[in-house]
């Protein structure tokens, strides 16, 4: 095991895979000379050279399309967005080209590409730099969406993503890049796409939380433990395909579920998961599924408003007590 930052774990995954397969290259803004806007790709230009670590102009639509074209022609690109907020100017490439070419070509062409970068809120970045994009991409058939919550999952899932023969949206987080954790240094450390992780076992309430909401879930569980309740925390890790089986199994034990999702609430991942739970676990539910999300407004700039906008531990704690009928 190695103690790595989240950014280092991602770098380790890319480096290991690029060492193994020279069809893989990294392309994006500031990935090469500047060593990455968030230093994820630090040292990679020196290691792999300018042919495989490529700086681009501010032109997401262009370099996303370039990546897709390269993938169609046999390469395996990793496209970095400085933030997924900028993927919106390239969204036609992701949704209409990357996601649909396999289907539209009758399976003749695949697009083995990873779009990766930070997603969601990252503090006082205001309305246009704080969007959670997971439900936007997860709704599109043909895209797989991954959202690791910790360095170890980041490495294992990114390696699997790079080896996958279909387009992957790989969601990271600015505020997690510095987070340290034990990371497997096994040579073939691959975490299967579509498998959730039961991060904490409990019998009283199930909390489902992905990405950095996962850490909120752990804190909530600690608070509940002080009250004598054991929360089971599930980190889906993969948003699509979603591992509903693990969630249903947990709810069949706890009979209650709270979802923490820092997206805006309408048609979000939490909406989808709550739907699937009622479909699959209806007879196991003793209370409505509750969710904690960001407020249904664009992200504000002011610190006090931003704190109010984001899901808070107290909200999740209250929701858990509510579904357990303890208040």
């Amino acid at each position, binding site marked *: 095991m190695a103690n790595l930052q989240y950014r280092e774990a991602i770098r380790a995954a890319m480096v290991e895979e690029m060492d193994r397969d020279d069809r893989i290259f990294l392309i994006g803004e500031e990935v090469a000379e500047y060593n990455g806007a968030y230093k994820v790709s630090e040292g990679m230009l020196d290691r792999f050279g300018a042919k495989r670590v490529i700086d681009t102009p501010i032109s997401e639509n262009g370099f996303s399309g370039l990546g897709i074209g390269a993938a169609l022609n046999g390469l395996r690109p990793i496209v970095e967005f400085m933030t997924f907020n900028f993927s919106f100017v390239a969204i036609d490439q992701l949704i209409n080209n990357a996601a649909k070419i396999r289907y539209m070509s009758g399976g003749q062409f695949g697009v083995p590409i990873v779009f990766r970068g930070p997603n969601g809120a990252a503090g006082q970045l205001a309305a246009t730099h704080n969007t959670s994009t997971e439900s936007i991409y997860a709704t599109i058939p043909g895209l797989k969406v991954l959202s690791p919550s910790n360095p170890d999952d980041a490495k294992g899932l990114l390696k699997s993503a790079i080896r996958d023969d279909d387009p992957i949206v790989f969601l990271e987080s600015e505020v997690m890049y510095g987070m340290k954790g034990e990371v497997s240094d096994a040579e073939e450390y691959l975490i299967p796409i579509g498998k959730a992780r039961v991060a904490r076992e409990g019998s009283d309430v199930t909390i489902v939380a992905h990405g950095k909401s996962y850490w909120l879930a752990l804190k909530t569980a600690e608070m509940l433990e002080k009250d004598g309740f054991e929360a089971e925390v599930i980190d889906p890790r993969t948003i699509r395909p979603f591992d509903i089986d693990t969630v249903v199994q947990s709810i069949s034990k706890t*009979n209650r579920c709270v979802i923490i999702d820092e997206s805006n*609430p309408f048609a979000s991942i939490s909406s989808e998961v709550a739907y699937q739970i009622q479909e699959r676990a*209806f*007879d*196991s*539910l*003793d*209370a*409505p599924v*509750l*969710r*904690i*999300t*960001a*407020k*249904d*407004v664009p992200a504000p700039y002011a610190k006090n408003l931003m704190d*109010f906008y984001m*899901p*808070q531990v107290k*909200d*999740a704690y*209250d*929701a858990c007590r*509510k579904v357990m*009928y303890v208040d």
Partner: protein
Amino acid sequence: MAIPVEMPKMSDTMEEGVLVSWLVEEGATIAPGDILAQVETDKATMDLESYDDGVLLKKVVGEGDAVPIGSLIAILGKAGEDISDVLSRYSGGAAGDGQSGPTPKPAEQSTPQAEELRVVPSTDDGRIKSSPLARKLAKDHGLDLASIRGSGPEGRIIKRDVVAAAGSGAAMPAPAPAAAPATAPATSPAVQTPAAAPASVPQRLPAAAFGADQPDEVVRISQMRKAISRRLSESKFTSPHFYLTVDVDMTAAMAARGEINALGEKLGRTKVSYNDLVTKACAVALQSHPAVNSSYDENKGVIEYHRQAHVAVAVAIEDGLITPVIRNADAKGLDRIAAETRNLAERARAKQLQPDEYEGSTFTTSNLGMFGIAEFTAIINPPNACILAIGTIRKMPIVKNDKLAIGNVMTLTLSCDHRVVDGATGARFLDTVKSHLEQPATMLL
């Protein structure tokens, strides 16, 4: 404009009411004075009258739901009128208003529908609310959801309710008779039979009979038991009670009653009971002992003295008791006291008493003589200062003029609120009552 119909305050002590049954359907045209529904208060089941006219647009509260005073229970208006304004006004403002306060509640924000459901009760009359798991568990155990009381929001039946019902062996829909703590006046032989008889004997599983943890039977606390609990706890815990006991020789009273009833029978009057004699004796005595006929009001910081003697008589009714009032009992003849008491007791058992018939007493008596109880202590009925507990009349050896004789002894115990009645005050009152009963003619003075 849509007109909200609220749960009215139907008695002084009422805090919430149970909507027992709707008597009109949605869409019906209502005129002022029409009876919309029956409401169970802590004291009685009463008619809910409409003060307005219009079409009944919506029944907001389902049958069997308990709602606090002032809650929205129905909406009147013109046919087809929009009632969302009224509904949202009573649901506590718009849900999901993120700017309404400094304390964030994102859980509510993100689930406005759920929030609204919780505030506005379901309109589906008679619908049983239960969690999916509770339904499945009930089915697995062969339990009827209708027989299980829900402890979740709005009476939702949840897992723990079904588990409790399953553990008890059988869910008990019918309220069972409480071990009668209640008292009844000896107005007639009919009163001597406890009012409540069990409709059915709960079936108990052998396993449950040995399990100390699982109740054999779970019954929701009725409005009446809640009121009894609240008022008597308040009385016993706030007024310092002390007790004075005296033996009364009822020989003369028995002779007088025999004479009165013989006369009354010819005139077609109601038979006078010993309890009626005590009511009269107390009422007359109250006039010369104002402290006993008073109320200690801590909130107002005053002691209220009452000129009139309104004597309440505790009546045992199904699942509780109620204290109808004989107003100005000192000024009423015994046959009238007898007739009023009997009438009030009968209507009390039928739960037909109106608030003005059981409110406003200044003194209360409680009689367990018909059960052979020699003596007991009673809890003061607020805001009274005292309550008199009446025992049975026993034939006992007594010493009369230094000779042993057979006496007819009735033991009276006066519970006094020491905040307003001191020992000597209570004792003097009790002595007056005793002399009225031992020399009944003094009551006529």
